[in-house]
């Protein structure tokens, strides 16, 4: 005898419900109370949730049917999604595999000087360059060079693609208030969705052995700041300067290339810095779906309770994070400099 029996009787819906007898499978709560051998009777006035209503009326489905429904519809849509997404995302797999191969096949005595040189070029700061050299040598010294390079190669590819996609999306958003209204909730969703939840639909869609699986997860997660800050940066460009550009007869392309993008560059660079940091955060979690790199060692530390392995890999990630952050920040402040008094 369930609480809401009376309600359906009053409403005259008994026939539609198919009699009081619930044909639906037992809910977990029922099963537990059955097993414990006593009928708890439940609360005096249960919330009219799907499960509680379905006890009185089998015509109403249970919550588990809802989740099952979501799953089924996703599975039904999967072949169509796959035929569309597979070819589009295939280049991502190639790029990731290519980058992994490239970073692995360049010998360390070329790779390390090259990375140090790049950090010098980007930051023009002696302190940062020395720190980069020191960190990479330290990682190599404790035999984490290969995994660190794997992580780095994944970050390079994913950040690159994030910028390539994110900046144009940001520009489009800054030009259209309607588009901005439409995209902002999506960005909020991507930013707040627990990172593991990203992986679930991706695992359904793609095989775990494909690199694009983690590539997509990282890009979806990391692309948000660069879009947001490109949009913000362009919207913040001084209205007077835009007016001057108009008054001298610039068309919208000239305005974008000669005025808006250069003036928004500090903001865009801040977005790129955040994107790099977030892809590093995600590449660790993505090791759950076979992303190689330092994350694998962290995972091993957790699974096998190998404290030392986990901590060394963790510190390696911290070092990479600091390297990437300092280099991109130094590059950012160099961009800022040209805008301010020297």
């Amino acid at each position, binding site marked *: 005898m369930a609480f809401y029996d009376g309600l359906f009787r009053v409403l005259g819906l008994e026939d539609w419900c198919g009699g009081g007898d619930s044909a639906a499978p037992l809910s977990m709560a029922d099963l537990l109370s059955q097993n414990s051998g006593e009928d708890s009777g439940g609360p005096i006035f249960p919330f009219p949730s799907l499960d509680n209503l379905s006890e009185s009326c089998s015509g109403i489905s249970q919550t588990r049917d809802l989740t099952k429904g979501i799953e089924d519809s996703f599975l039904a849509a999967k072949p169509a999604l796959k035929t569309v997404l597979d070819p589009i995302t295939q280049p991502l797999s190639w790029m990731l595999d290519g980058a992994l191969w490239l970073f692995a096949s360049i010998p360390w005595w070329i790779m390390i000087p090259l990375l140090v040189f790049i950090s010098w070029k980007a930051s023009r700061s002696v302190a940062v360059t020395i720190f980069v050299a020191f960190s990479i040598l330290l990682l190599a010294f404790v035999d984490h060079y290969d995994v660190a390079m794997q992580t780095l190669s994944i970050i390079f590819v994913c950040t690159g693609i994030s910028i390539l996609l994110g900046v144009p999306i940001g520009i489009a958003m800054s030009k259209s208030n309607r588009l901005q209204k439409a995209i902002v909730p999506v960005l909020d969703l991507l930013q707040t969705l627990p990172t593991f939840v990203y992986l679930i639909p991706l695992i359904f869609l793609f095989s775990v052995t494909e690199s694009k699986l983690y590539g997509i997860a990282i890009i979806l997660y990391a692309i948000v700041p660069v879009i947001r800050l490109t949009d913000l940066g362009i919207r913040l460009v001084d209205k007077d*300067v835009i007016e001057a550009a108009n*008054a*001298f*007869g610039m*068309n919208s392309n000239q305005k974008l290339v000669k005025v808006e993008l250069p003036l928004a560059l500090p903001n865009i660079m801040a977005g790129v810095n955040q994107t790099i940091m977030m892809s590093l955060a995600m590449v660790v979690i993505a090791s759950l779906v076979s992303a190689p790199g330092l994350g694998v060692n962290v995972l091993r530390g957790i699974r096998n309770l190998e404290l030392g392995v986990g901590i060394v890999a963790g510190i390696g990630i911290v070092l990479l994070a600091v390297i990437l952050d300092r280099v991109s920040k130094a590059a950012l402040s160099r961009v800022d400099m040209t805008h301010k*008094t020297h």
Partner: protein
Amino acid sequence: MTDQPKVRLRGLYKIFGPRDKEMMTHVTAGMGKPELLEKHKHVLGLQDINVDMQAGEITVVMGLSGSGKSTLIRHLNRLIEPTAGEILVDGEDVMKLNAVDLRQRRQKKMSMVFQKFALLPHRTVLENAAMALEVQGVDKAEREKEGMKWLARVGLEGYENHYPAQLSGGMQQRVGIARALTSNSDIMLMDEAFSALDPLIRTDMQNLLLELQTELHKTIIFITHDLDEALKLADHLVILKDGAVVQQGEPQGILLNPADPYIEDFVSDINRARVLRVRSVMQPLDAGQSFAGDVQLNDNLESLIAVSGGDTSKTYRVMEDGEAVGQLDMRDLVKALVPRVSSSEAK
């Protein structure tokens, strides 16, 4: 002065708000600015502006903040679209131009100088000065040559490779002027170009502008809220109040014959001796008169007072290019110095 004005505004109206066209019926029916705002939540920016701006002259549009002067100047290159009316430049209606022709017009025909300079902070002074030509697609060597030339002309030689942020306000505005001159347009729009500068620099810049003007004879439309500045620069003065033209004409004429109390209030505070010139107060030449000396047609009264030593009994002969064109009685001069009683004092 040519027969056809360079720029001609005919019945120009601007109403701010989402349904501005509908509001036109109310405005033409005589609804005023406060009423329109209260009843329909639309702001009447400009009403029935009719101004002719002659080629080679400086037309100064003066008004207090909120009088619509910045709105007015932005109509000339259609940075703001009018609600009704015609804007004729060289006899051609700017309103009928399509987007491409309008850009063409902005590039070649009208340049603009801004109150807040609006230079590109990430570009050097030279790149800023050459911007107008860059937009027109002139090649680098050519446009830098032009840029250098005009930067030198406004006194910024040697600063070509600095960034705008490294320069003082006055120097930045010189870059702004050089940028406008480099575009080689015959119309220059100056939106409160000197208002952000301190008084001494402002005087310098006004002199620079007048000096350039004697040489270049551009059609300059200058916006200001400063009457002294307006009187100093203007060949033709337009006074705006609440979006309508209260009086326009030759500045000396406005000063001597203000059309309404608003303008009387305006002109009562200024140093008339410095602004008024001999030509505005002189009388026709009277034969047989003896003169205490000669003065020039464009001398201001201040200099004449200094010459006469304050003696009001003297009469001077007025000369232009070595020819006597009139005479000036010092008593007339003194009368001209006293403003008509302003509205506030009359009450």
